């Protein structure tokens, strides 16, 4: 009796444990009831979408943007690809041509394509563009309301294919608001929104699309969205490039990096947006048909963003250029690159991302100037630039990585960048001493006799690579005698950055088009007019709150010349020289995104060899990928 019961109980336990074995083997799961061959599965880097049924992208913060909505369903006037583009970096999308400004840049005239239709069969016209502006200006709680209200005096649609923007003041870059790099002001369907009482509280579910895909189904818990190719895909701006390959797109939340890697190894996730370098290495090793932007090391796609240490220049210590330069010269960028990317990074000594068109436009032409750049520490004159840093990195990597590390100098420059500022403790010491700092034992003391404490804000596991780089830099500062600490912000980042509630931050305030040499994308907001007092919130970009009369002049000059005017590059170079002298931010490297693409079911992904688009899944221009994808055999 006794043992009977026991064995029964034990058997029950054993069954419970063995139950998984009895089930059909299925690791992560793929969308059910859709032929895998017609389906492209992409990561939605926003993760699980809390407000899953919200598609009104013109409202603040509501649902997901990168769930396929801006990539597959919406459209706007122009796109600039951070890479070469299918037909050049610049693409006229809803617009038939480039914007036409009047002489003093107070009016922008746009010619629209005809024959494009919303997915509910209504034709797209200039009225939709006008409504996009008018509705948002009228509702101050909408996302682009302030931007539009600030710039636009009025908008006119004299005929279905013409829109005229009257601007409040000269702005040669106004079209940037309607130009997709990552996103832009998307055009909303007038015929839907004009019937809505409060457009800010309208969920736009189910969304009416203007691009080639339309919503098929989505998870009310926000883990997946499935989009279906429109029957009338030819009546969209993407139709010009031919029929998109995948009939279905699934934007899914595959979970944390570990799970993403496993999912792709199981061929259940075609495009991973981003993972850790280690995860990328594992995929490159074990995923037979997985690859990154580069086929080998360093794998990742360099975003047109410049990762760096951004100083809060309203901070008492960091107001001083000498301190900023001293902190720069304490850094050994090789160790930072190793810590952050395991070497898989493209370094930059100047404050322009070393990606897209920029190396040709800025880095290479300015190499000679950078080499000759000299700082005066008061005791000595130093030429801080070391042109061989990228090569040193490849030399460090080669023993473990072998032949995938290039030897060719041009290739090294392409993948790893050029040189960087050489670690120079002596010069750093001299600079700090000139600024009034004293070393007490191993510890730097501020001019008022307190230990020099410096916090470096990181985003924690929201951006692990930057956190790793930051940890390394803090360690180097500590070794140099500064009481440096990591400061994890995570969710509070936006507020703290806006409020200037940080000493220094690792991330980026320099973002560019990538595919275009114009720097106004970030630089315009660096004008001193936008800088708030200490303690007051401040619009994003230029969190360093750095102002300089020379910079204001450069910005103002740029506003007065055409987008494609070659003089823009010259002004950009002036900016680089100024920032190099002042060091309001320490440029480190491009933000490399380890986008991993599995070629098992689909081929034709953009790569370094065929750079027709940015592969990163959350960028609006990843739609160009769809038309180039072909089913694998």
């Amino acid at each position: 009796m006794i043992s009977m019961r026991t064995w029964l109980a034990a058997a029950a336990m054993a069954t419970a444990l063995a139950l998984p074995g009895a089930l059909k083997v299925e690791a992560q799961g793929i969308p059910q009831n859709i032929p895998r061959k017609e389906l492209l599965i992409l990561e939605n880097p926003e993760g699980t979408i809390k407000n899953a049924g919200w598609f009104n992208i013109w409202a603040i913060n509501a649902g997901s943007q990168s769930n396929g909505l801006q990539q597959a369903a919406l459209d706007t006037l122009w796109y600039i690809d951070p890479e070469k583009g299918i037909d050049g970096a610049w693409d006229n999308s809803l617009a038939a041509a480039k914007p036409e400004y009047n002489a003093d840049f107070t009016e922008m005239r746009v010619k629209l394509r005809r024959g494009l239709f919303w997915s509910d069969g209504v034709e797209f016209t200039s009225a939709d563009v006008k409504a996009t502006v008018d509705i948002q200006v009228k509702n101050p709680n909408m996302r682009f309301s302030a931007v539009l209200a600030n710039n636009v005096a009025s908008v006119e649609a004299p005929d279905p294919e013409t829109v005229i923007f009257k601007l409040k003041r000269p702005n040669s870059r106004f079209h940037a608001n309607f130009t997709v790099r990552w996103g832009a002001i998307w055009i909303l369907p007038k015929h839907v929104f004009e019937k809505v009482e409060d457009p800010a509280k309208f969920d736009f579910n189910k969304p009416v699309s203007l691009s080639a895909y339309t919503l098929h189904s989505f998870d009310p818990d926000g883990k997946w969205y499935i989009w279906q190719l429109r029957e009338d895909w030819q009546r969209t701006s993407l139709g010009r490039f031919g029929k998109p390959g995948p009939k279905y797109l699934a934007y899914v939340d595959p979970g944390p990096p570990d799970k993403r890697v496993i999912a792709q190894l199981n061929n259940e996730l075609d495009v991973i947006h981003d993972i850790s370098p280690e995860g990328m290495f594992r995929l490159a090793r074990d995923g037979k048909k997985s690859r990154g932007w580069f086929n080998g090391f360093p794998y990742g796609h360099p975003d047109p963003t410049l990762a760096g240490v951004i100083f809060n220049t309203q901070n008492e210590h960091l107001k001083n250029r000498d301190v900023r330069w001293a902190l720069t010269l304490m850094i050994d960028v090789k160790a930072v690159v190793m810590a952050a990317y395991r070497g898989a990074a493209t370094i930059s000594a100047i404050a322009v991302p070393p990606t897209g068109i920029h190396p040709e436009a800025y880095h290479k032409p300015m190499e000679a100037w950078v080499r000759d750049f000299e700082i005066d520490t008061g005791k000595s004159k130093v030429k801080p630039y070391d042109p061989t840093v990228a090569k040193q990195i490849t030399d460090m990597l080669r023993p473990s990585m072998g032949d995938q590390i290039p030897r060719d100098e041009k290739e090294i420059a392409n993948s790893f960048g050029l040189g960087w500022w050489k670690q120079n403790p002596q010069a750093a010491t001299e600079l700090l001493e000139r600024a009034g700092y004293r070393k007490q034992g191993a510890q730097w003391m501020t001019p008022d006799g307190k230990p020099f404490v410096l916090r470096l804000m990181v985003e924690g596991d929201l951006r692990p690579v930057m956190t790793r780089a930051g940890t390394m830099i803090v360690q180097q500062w500590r070794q140099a005698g500064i009481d440096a600490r990591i400061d994890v912000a995570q969710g509070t980042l936006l507020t703290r950055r806006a409020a200037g509630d940080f000493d220094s931050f690792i991330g980026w305030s320099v973002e560019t088009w990538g595919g275009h040499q114009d720097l106004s994308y970030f630089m315009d907001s660096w004008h001193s007019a936008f800088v708030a007092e200490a303690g007051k919130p401040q619009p994003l970009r230029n969190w360093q709150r750095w102002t300089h009369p020379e910079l204001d002049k450069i910005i103002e000059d740029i506003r007065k010349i055409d987008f494609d005017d070659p003089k823009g590059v010259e002004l950009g170079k002036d900016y680089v020289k100024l920032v190099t002298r002042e060091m309001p931010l320490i440029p480190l490297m491009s933000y490399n995104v380890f986008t991993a693409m599995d070629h098992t079911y689909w081929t034709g992904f953009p790569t370094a060899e065929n750079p027709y688009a940015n592969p990163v899944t959350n960028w609006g221009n990843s739609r160009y990928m769809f038309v180039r994808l072909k089913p694998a055999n």
Partner: protein
Amino acid sequence: MRSYLHYALRRFAQFVLVVFIGINLAYVITHATPIDPVEQSIAAVTSFGNTAPEAIAEMRRSLQELYGLNGGWLEQYSTFWSRVLRADFGPSLSAFPAPVSSLIARALPWTLGLLGFATIVSWLLGNLLGGLAGYYQQNRSLKLLGVLAMALHPVPYYIVALALMIVFGFIWPLLPITGGSAMNLEQGWNLPFIISVAKHSILPALSLILIGVGSWFLGMRSLVSNIVTEDHVVYAEIAGVDPRRILGSYVMRNALAPQVTGLAMSLGGIFNGAVITEKVFGYPGVGTLLVDAVYAGDYGLVLGVTTVSILGVSLGVLLIDLLYPLIDPRVQVTT
């Protein structure tokens, strides 16, 4: 009946107190946050373009009104309570303007299902096996189970969940390790969806059950091994009462009463475990919602989830307490 009413009223008073203290704690903590939801929204909005200072000021005004942050501390506090009583926690910041309550309402069934299932299974299984182990103290397989339970139960939920995920997700990939169900299934009472939900819940539930069974097992075993020496059991034994009857009606039944109390007391702890487990397995319940809300700095949502979890756990405790006299008729007279 009268005494039951008294008992129930006392329990209800305790419930009200728990909820009152808990929610006030949550309110005070959240409102001490340095996160300013208005500034956070502005930051998010302005990251897309060049915004003039006037436009920002305008935006700030309207957002403040929207988040109900106007007025003094007292006014905000009373607004807060009236909102809690209406289950209205305002709009979520990270999913603006979706109301927090609708986000929680969506997540809650997942958590309740997972938690309820795991709790009931582990409570029943743990008590059954523990009772047997306490009664048949010489039985080898039960002794072995005791060792297993002892080794497993002090381990935190996170570690067990992680270990399960590694084993059944990576090393021996048998089961889904993320999400609540497979993709592109219609949620509802249809067979494929139910099967998929069951399959997705195995690992999260197992991680809760493994620990739960262990602690109930050990608790029950020690209770039973004490109860078997009690007079009424010894008396029944020397009276030659059927051993099965003794095990059932005299030993297990009597040990059950403190175990029910224990269930009520540890409900908070079990809920904690579910929060963590959900996060590890990406389960779409309130645990994931809470952790993500913290990452997103969404204070309305954090407060809402905390409040609802305090309410939920206290309600569960109240329910167990109210049913308790069924198990132990004595409670009604002791005050």
